[in-house]
């Protein structure tokens, strides 16, 4: 167990560096332990994942001189799903002179997260955000610029300043390619060894001479040959992203999974706040049961697009029946419900608020599309105000994408959008140093339970991934590794490695031998439906209890009736999916359990029983001002809950208000 955690009566606090908020990170860096260059070469670090967090961490650690092993599930690090982030990355540069500051970015982030994040971590995030922009520009990331040659900004949800840096609608792509190029440079130099088309299937813990369990390696499956391989390292970093695909339909990529996190959880790492999942308000609506994923339309569209549904129910019905075109509805018959309900922020309210508002209108019968599960995002007004060319310059590629998918021209008819699961704030619990509750095991990026609290603001995921990877972990991990310089490289023939591999072999054999009737996808879709219906945008005690029962049933069905063709000794995509689904079933269960425990509404977690008269989320700071940390206790019983107490020294917690 990580010795910074001292649990009393199930509650603990995490030590953070002394001093004022703005001094903590500086203090930490000034006093932390470092590893000298000669010793760095003798220390191995495994980084699992090559997204923004993983690639930037692997590259930075390689630059420092550590011997890095980097694992990638796809055929190239450049495919990681960070690449799909469209809108931008936040930083408090205040280039626009609109009153931005590190404190304000910190404050917006912690408020946007509904006061469920650790103050010191969030402040550090805001602090290093500026360095990220400098770093990316130096790497040759082609951020958008103004005619004077300086960097351009746009505004994003949950902020009253323009602090978002962007590269067309492909900011994630450009930032990832920046990190990928830094990583490629280290691969070329030999300091990072890259393993592509590998999937981590377990983390290996080995006790040191004092009897403390430490993460000392992983077991990974070579997806091309099917071979299980053992890898040793002095420390293991998990950067495998979020678990949003538990919903089957999400904006995540097909290979995005929660398995690495679940393996850490099963080995004893705390899994924190699993129920905090973000529903993104602007996705292309569901259109059929064959659908494999939901496509996100950047939140930046809300800068210039206006969201509306018809004011009259009969108009909505006519639209659904295809008897009326949206362009035929007059302005006065349109309900711009976000502008109506939240005059101060309008269409730029945070994601959770915008998503719930869309659901509220659709539930009330004003939804459009043939399913009634969509609202309009209209650019008519922007085109009138700015001209078509300006709109095209800003959003051209997004419009093109929409048109290719939906076969409608968004310059002429409003887009249709609907919320979809997008990001998971919950994840592996980490301390100030990004170390999990297991020594030597670190988690960064979306994989950790993160600095976003209960809700993440737009353009903050890229910020956090890169902050962790470039500027936080490369420091904090040294504080751990400095004590490991005496540790020799361990043999992977140690019984701990052998056993971990054998356990996976047994699990695979068991799966292959079920030879049942159900395909993996059909079971995954079933799980996804249960999650969306019961653990989705609005949850109740009853729905969560039902979810717990249903997930157990699906789990039983999975382990008794799944069919996986082929064998384990070669590439087997169905087997890969089955192994991931086995873990998703556990994540789904944890989400429901955590949601049931949290008797309040905050951020991405909305319990219908806990709302204000106006239908806004009602927090209970007195009872739930903690990060819920779940610890595994075996297959047959529910996990144990520990609470990391969140204290707010520097901010006054208030009801989030985006009205005035």
């Amino acid at each position, binding site marked *: 167990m990580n010795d910074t955690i001292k649990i009393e009566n199930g509650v603990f606090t995490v030590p953070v560096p002394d001093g004022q908020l703005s001094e903590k990170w500086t203090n930490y860096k000034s006093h932390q332990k470092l590893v000298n260059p000669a010793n760095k070469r003798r220390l191995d670090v495994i980084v699992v994942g090559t997204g923004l967090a993983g690639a930037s961490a692997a*590259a*930075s650690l390689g*630059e420092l001189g550590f011997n890095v092993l980097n694992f990638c599930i*796809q*055929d*190239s*690090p*450049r*495919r*990681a*799903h960070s*690449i*799909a982030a469209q809108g931008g990355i936040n930083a408090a*540069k205040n280039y626009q002179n609109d009153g931005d500051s590190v404190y304000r970015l910190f404050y917006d982030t912690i408020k946007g997260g509904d006061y469920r994040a650790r103050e010191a971590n969030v402040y550090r995030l805001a602090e290093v955000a500026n*360095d990220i*922009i*400098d770093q*990316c520009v*130096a*790497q*040759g990331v*082609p*951020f*958008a*610029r103004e005619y004077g*040659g*300086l*960097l351009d900004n746009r505004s994003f949800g949950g902020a009253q300043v323009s602090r978002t840096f962007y*590269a*067309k609608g*492909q900011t994630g*792509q*450009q930032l990832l390619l920046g990190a990928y*190029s830094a990583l*490629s*440079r280290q*691969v*070329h130099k030999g300091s990072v060894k890259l393993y*592509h088309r590998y999937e981590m299937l377990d983390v290996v813990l080995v006790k040191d001479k004092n009897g403390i369990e430490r993460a000392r390696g992983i077991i990974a499956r070579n997806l091309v040959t099917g071979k299980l391989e053992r890898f040793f390292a002095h420390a293991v970093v998990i950067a495998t992203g979020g678990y949003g695909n538990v919903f089957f339909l999400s904006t995540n*990529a*097909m290979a995005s999974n929660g398995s690495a996190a679940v393996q850490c959880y099963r080995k004893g790492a705390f899994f924190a706040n699993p129920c905090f999942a973000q529903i993104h308000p602007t996705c292309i609506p569901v259109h*059929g049961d*064959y659908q*494999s994923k939901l*496509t996100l339309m950047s939140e930046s569209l809300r800068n210039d697009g206006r969201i509306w549904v018809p004011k009259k129910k009969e108009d909505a019905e006519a639209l659904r029946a295809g008897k009326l075109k949206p362009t035929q509805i007059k302005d006065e018959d349109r309900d711009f419900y976000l502008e109506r309900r939240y005059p101060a922020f309008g269409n730029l309210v945070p994601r959770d608020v915008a998503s719930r508002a869309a659901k509220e209108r659709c539930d009330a019968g004003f939804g459009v599309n043939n399913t009634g599960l969509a609202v309009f995002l209209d650019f008519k007004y922007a085109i009138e105000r700015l001209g078509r060319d300006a709109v095209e310059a800003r959003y051209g590629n997004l419009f*093109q*994408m929409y048109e*290719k*998918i939906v*076969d409608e021209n968004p310059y002429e008819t409003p887009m249709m959008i609907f919320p979809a699961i997008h990001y998971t704030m919950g994840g592996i619990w980490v301390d100030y140093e990004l170390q999990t509750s297991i020594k030597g095991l670190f988690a960064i990026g979306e994989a950790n339970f993160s600095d976003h609290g209960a809700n993440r603001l737009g353009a903050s995921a890229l910020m956090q991934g890169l902050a962790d990877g*470039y500027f936080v972990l*490369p420091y904090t991990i040294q504080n751990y590794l400095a004590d490991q310089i005496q540790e020799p490289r361990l043999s992977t023939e140690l019984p701990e490695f052998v056993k971990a591999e054998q356990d996976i072999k047994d699990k695979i054999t068991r799966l292959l031998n079920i030879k049942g009737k159900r*395909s993996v*996808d059909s079971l995954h879709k079933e799980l996804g439906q249960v999650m969306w219906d019961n653990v989705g945008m609005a949850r109740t005690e009853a729905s969560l209890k039902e979810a717990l029962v249903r997930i157990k049933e699906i789990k039983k069905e999975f382990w008794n009736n799944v*069919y996986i*063709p*082929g064998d384990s000794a*070669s*590439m087997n995509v*169905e087997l890969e999916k089955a192994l991931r689904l086995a873990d998703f079933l556990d994540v789904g269960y944890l989400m429901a359990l955590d949601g049931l425990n949290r008797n309040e509404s905050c951020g991405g977690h909305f319990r219908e029983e806990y709302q204000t008269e106006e239908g806004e989320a009602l927090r209970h700071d007195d009872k739930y001002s903690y990060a819920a940390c779940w610890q595994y206790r075996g297959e047959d019983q529910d996990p144990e809950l520990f609470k990391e107490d969140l204290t707010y020294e520097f901010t006054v917690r208030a009801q989030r208000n985006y009205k005035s």
Partner: protein
Amino acid sequence: MEKSINIKVKVWRQAGPKVKGMFETYELNNISTDASFLEMIDILNEQLVKEHKEPVAFDHDCREGICGMCSLYINGHPHGPDQEVTTCQLHMRKFHDGQVITIEPWRSRAFPIIKDLMVDRNAYDKIIQAGGYVSVNTGGIPDANAIPIPKPKADEAMDAASCIGCGACAAACKNGSAMLFVAAKVSQLALLPQGQVERAARAKAMVAKMDELGFGNCTNTGACAAECPKSVSLIHIARLNREYLGAKFKD
């Protein structure tokens, strides 16, 4: 409007890199025209699993046209018969009832087949590793606004940088050339002030690696740009030529 079509797909099946492959034909009924091409393959695979047959292996990930993982040579075109899209953004409305759709893997010596429609595109990573970066370490960087960059240059660099590394250029090229891919990266960094220091070395190193890996010689047919899902332009190839020749003549 949504409707359903019945189609036949002729799919390349190959159990492994060294095994002989062949086409198999499958019938698919009631495919919604709103389904994406990859969803159609999902349906096919679901059908195959039900029949206890091995599903078709194919590369795919983000399914929104940005990761560059999906490939497939569909009816004679990489990413299928629609321009400016990747296979995952291709929709069945581009096909008609009763059509036979031929699906092949990328075929290029530098992209060996792993299984069925899946190929190994590691060669592209190796080209980037040879020099497709600005050599800066993390930290110790001047302010982002310290060097202004003219907007037209930044925009052109962005156009080049929009390459997703999918391999369609080399797959489309009758010469199996990777010039458009290499050009996109060389051009992006040659346009930006940050890339100036290593400009000549980068062009030489990346071209040398490209040649070493067995890609063909560019003959400017333009098939790469015509098939590129991100519309990366041939002018970047001209810039790469310029960069390379300039570097070599300077030596």
